[in-house]
Structure formats: structure tokens, C-alpha cells
């Protein structure tokens, strides 16, 4: 252990003893602003960072989702920019620590702030932002709201640099990107987690970046279509990947076993809500007891389950 790190630990231990701060702070106290994001190489030329399962806030710089990058012979593609410009810059730092090849693409897997609040950091690069064909529309109707609603938790300083930067290269159905002797397949999904989910498959290593189509540990959040998500699990399951980088959860994760936990949660949620609807239970009552037997299996269950149940109820009522 180096002297610097030991000092960091000692200092943090003191702060912890005094204030009872979370492990998040402990981890962050050891990295300083400007440090590269601590990414992990998960396959040849494929790097990822595992976000922590938490709500985005000032302490964690919004670093709650998984982000990554893939290095080809000519260029680099980044998958998601993270939850703040601070994280986006740290991600660029991690890339520059490993290659000086240009960042040709920044791929946004979907509209949520934890995945694209870092977009503005990439304006210092030549990266073309790539997204699902529905992503610009989704950002038009949500962007201003996101910028406002995260201000309390993230703080004015962290929010100051964050802007909504929409994609300019749009994917309908499927498309390929070439990084030089390295092909990526981008697939635009039908409404599932959101109505603008995009996944990335690296053919050289058979690594699959799922975006938030796959959650592990962190409760999945519903912002598109539960039925659409369930229906597309079989297609996801059929993708022949060696390993996956889920939107949230361990990196890498075994594929397709990575889908098992969310499939089970969706089935429980859908079945509870279908029963409530059939029994004539009003939405406001039904969502309180929904999927409670899944509670012990997930982090952030209390933060997101009622919301998922609300969206599921409204969708399933039309069956």
C-alpha cells in the first residue's frame, strides 16, 4: 500500500468515525477530482467501469451506472458517458491512459441521466454521439425536467456543466460501426426499459453491452413497456455473447444468466398487477403491495418498486 493511499484510508476512517458517512464516500475519498475512472479490462480491448447501486447524488458524482469503451485499430467507441460531466471527463481520462486513438463514437444506450449527463464532456473530443432513433424525441420531452429535478440531489456545482446533448447519428433497427478491424453491432430495441434502448455487441470478443435492458442487483426501473421488455427477453436471451456488461450490476456478467433475476421480478410484478386489475383493486392500493416478495432480492427496491408497479398497472389495464 502506498503512503498516499494509506493516508487516504486513515483520513477517511476518521471522517467515518465522526460522521458515519457511507461506504460511497469512503470509496470516493480515495480518488480525487481529475483522476481517471477506475475501469477494468474485461476482454481484449474492452474496458468497463461498474457504477454503484445508489441514487445519483453529490457524493457519488452520479457514477451509478456501468460505462465502458472499446478500442479498435483506428478508433475508440465509448458506451455511455455517465451521470455527470465529472464522470465523463474521468472516463475520457481512463481512455487516454490506455490509448491515444481518437474517440470516434459516443454511444448513448438510452435517455436516462445516469447514462448521458456526461455527454457534454465529450465535446472536447471529435466523438459522434449515437443513439436510438427515438432518443432525440425522448430528450426533447424530458431534458429540461431532468436538469431541474436532479439539481437538489446533485448540487449546483455538479449540475453547472451538465447539458442535454442529443445524438446526431440515429439507429433504426440495426447498424454497424467499424473501429478499424473491429466491428460493433448496434441494435435499436422496441420499447422495453425505455422507448429508446440501444445495445452494443463487440464481435471481436463477443462482449455484449446491454444498456439498461439488463439490471443485476439494482432493481430494474420501468420507463417504457413491461410487456415489451418481457417479450424481448427471449431475443436478448438468444444473443450469443461470451459475457455482458449490464446497465447496472457486476462487470462482466455471465450471459444469458444475467437476465434471470430481472425476468423473475417482471413475472412477479406482472402477475401481481394482473390479479389486482382483475379483482378491481384501485391503482393506488395495488401498487403498495406489488411484488413485495421480491424485496429482499434487490437494492433500491423501495426507491423504485412502487413506481414500476404504477407503470405496470397502467400498461396492463389495457390487456
Amino acid at each position, binding site marked *: 500500500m502506498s503512503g498516499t493511499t494509506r493516508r487516504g484510508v486513515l483520513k477517511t476512517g476518521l471522517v467515518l468515525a465522526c460522521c458515519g458517512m457511507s461506504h460511497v464516500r469512503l470509496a470516493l475519498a480515495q480518488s480525487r477530482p481529475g483522476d481517471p475512472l477506475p475501469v477494468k479490462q474485461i476482454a481484449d480491448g474492452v474496458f468497463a467501469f461498474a457504477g454503484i447501486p445508489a441514487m445519483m447524488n453529490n457524493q457519488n458524482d452520479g457514477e451509478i451506472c456501468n460505462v465502458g469503451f472499446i478500442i479498435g485499430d483506428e478508433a475508440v467507441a465509448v458506451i455511455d458517458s455517465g451521470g455527470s460531466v465529472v464522470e465523463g471527463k474521468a472516463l475520457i481520462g481512463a481512455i487516454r491512459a490506455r490509448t491515444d486513438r481518437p474517440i470516434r463514437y459516443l454511444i448513448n444506450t438510452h435517455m436516462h441521466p445516469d447514462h448521458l449527463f456526461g455527454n457534454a464532456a465529450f465535446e472536447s473530443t471529435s466523438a459522434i454521439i449515437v443513439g436510438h432513433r427515438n432518443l432525440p424525441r425522448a430528450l426533447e420531452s424530458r431534458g429540461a425536467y431532468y436538469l431541474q429535478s436532479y439539481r437538489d440531489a446533485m448540487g449546483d456545482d455538479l449540475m453547472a456543466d451538465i447539458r442535454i446533448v442529443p445524438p446526431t447519428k440515429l439507429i433504426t433497427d440495426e447498424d454497424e460501426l467499424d473501429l478499424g478491424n473491429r466491428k460493433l453491432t448496434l441494435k435499436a430495441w422496441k*420499447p422495453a426499459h425505455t422507448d429508446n434502448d440501444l445495445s452494443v455487441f463487440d464481435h471481436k470478443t463477443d462482449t455484449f453491452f446491454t444498456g439498461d435492458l439488463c439490471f443485476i442487483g439494482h432493481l430494474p426501473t420501468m420507463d417504457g413497456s413491461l410487456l415489451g421488455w418481457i417479450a424481448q427477453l427471449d431475443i436478448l436471451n438468444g444473443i450469443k455473447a461470451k459475457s455482458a456488461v449490464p446497465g447496472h450490476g457486476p462487470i462482466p456478467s455471465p450471459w444469458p444468466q444475467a437476465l434471470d433475476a430481472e425476468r423473475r421480478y417482471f413475472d412477479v410484478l406482472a402477475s401481481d398487477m394482473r390479479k389486482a386489475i382483475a379483482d378491481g383493486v384501485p391503482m393506488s392500493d395495488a401498487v403498495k403491495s406489488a411484488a413485495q416478495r421480491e424485496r429482499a432480492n434487490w437494492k433500491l427496491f423501495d426507491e423504485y418498486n412502487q413506481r414500476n408497479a404504477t407503470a405496470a398497472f397502467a400498461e396492463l389495464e389495457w390487456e
Partner: protein
Amino acid sequence: MFTIVQPRSRMVATALFVLVGAVISFPVWAQNAGPPESTTWNGLKGDVFGQKPIEPANGIVSIDAPKRAEDAAIVPVDLHFKTDAGTGRIKTVTLIVDENPSPVAAVFKFGPDAGVTHLATRLRVNAYSYVRAIAETEDGKLHMTETFVKASGGCSAPAMKNTDEALANLGKMKLRVFSSKASGMEPMTRATEMQLMIRHPNNSGLQMDQVTRYYIPAHFIQGLTVSQGNRLIMSMEGGISISEDPNFRFEFDAKPGEDIKVEAADTEGKQFKDEWPLESSSL
């Protein structure tokens, strides 16, 4: 023949439609604390009700909403009504979300013999906000109740989840009739509970057309009438604070054997109609 219900006043119509333009004006203070002073309401009430005095509801109307808006796009709100001999029946109820860009979510008008005792709908709630219901009784007096709703956490936004689906099924309606909770009463006198659902994006017009770069105009259900036979049960003038796929669950005095008719119109002038027989056996 279908006509959109006349606004109760020009000022209500103004609050319903013109304020749609003031879209990104979030009061920052509203995000910071618990139930605050009704500052926004104090500035708003004159626009909606003029100088007319507003009394506390004292149970004439009561409101239930979750303390936290789990999904900002779908916040269930329940209204219960009690007829008071002194004031007469409730003629109209105005539902307001103080901090929304279009605060007047809806104005409901009830038929003279509809006997509506309960109405549940779903709202968009943009920020920490009071949600309030103001009932006007037959004696012309206004009665207000309110509840405070905290904005949702995480990435929930008061926007459409599945835009293409909402547009593909525009205007499709569904009516559910729930079996009466009070058994053993005569069918002619007991309340019936129904739920009306309409597929509509009910959108705010915030989205930009990617080709033209112009904002797409707001597109929402602005008028709705529910009747049984020739009898008005309920009508609504609505705005964009009503959730996508507008949903109304209500209890009223049903008459066996007469059809339930629903007529709705949106801001693009599209009209939607449907009709369902109400069998005596389902009452």
C-alpha cells in the same frame, strides 16, 4: 350532438390552455422543503376564481394522493364528495397542481341527479407541489382541500413512456363496471362504480419535430362527457396535467338498462365516441 363543455369562466380556460406555453418554469424553492406556504396558489387563485371567497372544504370534498409521486407521469388522485344539506350538491370540481406548467388539470361538472360520490384519476406532477380540489356547490360557494405531493426521485419524468403506442391506438376507449360493494340494496338506488380509459398521449407539446425543428403542438383531450341515456353523469374540461391515457374511476347513481355513452374531443379536433350497454345484472 357533442359539444365541448363551456368553460366556467374565461379565466379557467386561460389557465387551462395558455399556461401550456410556460413550460420550463420550475420554482426552485419548491424542490427544497416540506409543505411550504401556498405562494404559487396565492398568485394563481385570482386567475382561476377571481375574487370569489374560497372556504375550507370541511369534508364536502376530500383528496387523497401519495405523499411522493412514485411515477411523475402517473400520480393517482382520489376525490370523495359529500353532499351537505346546507350547501346543496356539488356542481363542479376543479383539480389543480400548483407547480405544473399548466396548473388547472381539469374541471369536472356533475349532472344534477348523477350522484357522483367518488372520482379517481391520474395526474402528471412536475415538481414538489400542492394538489388541490375546489368544489363549487349549488349555493355558489367554493370549498377547497389540498394535499402536498413530493416529486418523484430518480429518472422518473412526467412524459410519455411509449409514444408510438399511445398514438397508434389514439381514442380507443375501455369501460369497466365494478360489481357493487353494497349488496342487498335495490338496483335502482345503489351506486355503481365504473372506470373509463381513453388511449391518448395527452401530451404537453414539448417535443421538437426532428425534421422541422418546430415544437409539436400540445395534443390532449380537452373535453369529455359521460352520460347515461340522456342524463349527464359527468363532463370534464382537461389539460396536459391529466396523465397520458386519461383514466377516470367514479361512483354514481346508475339506472339499470340505459346505455353509458362517452364522447371526447381533443385539441386537434378529433372526436371519439363509444357506447356500452349497462345491464341491470351488472349493477
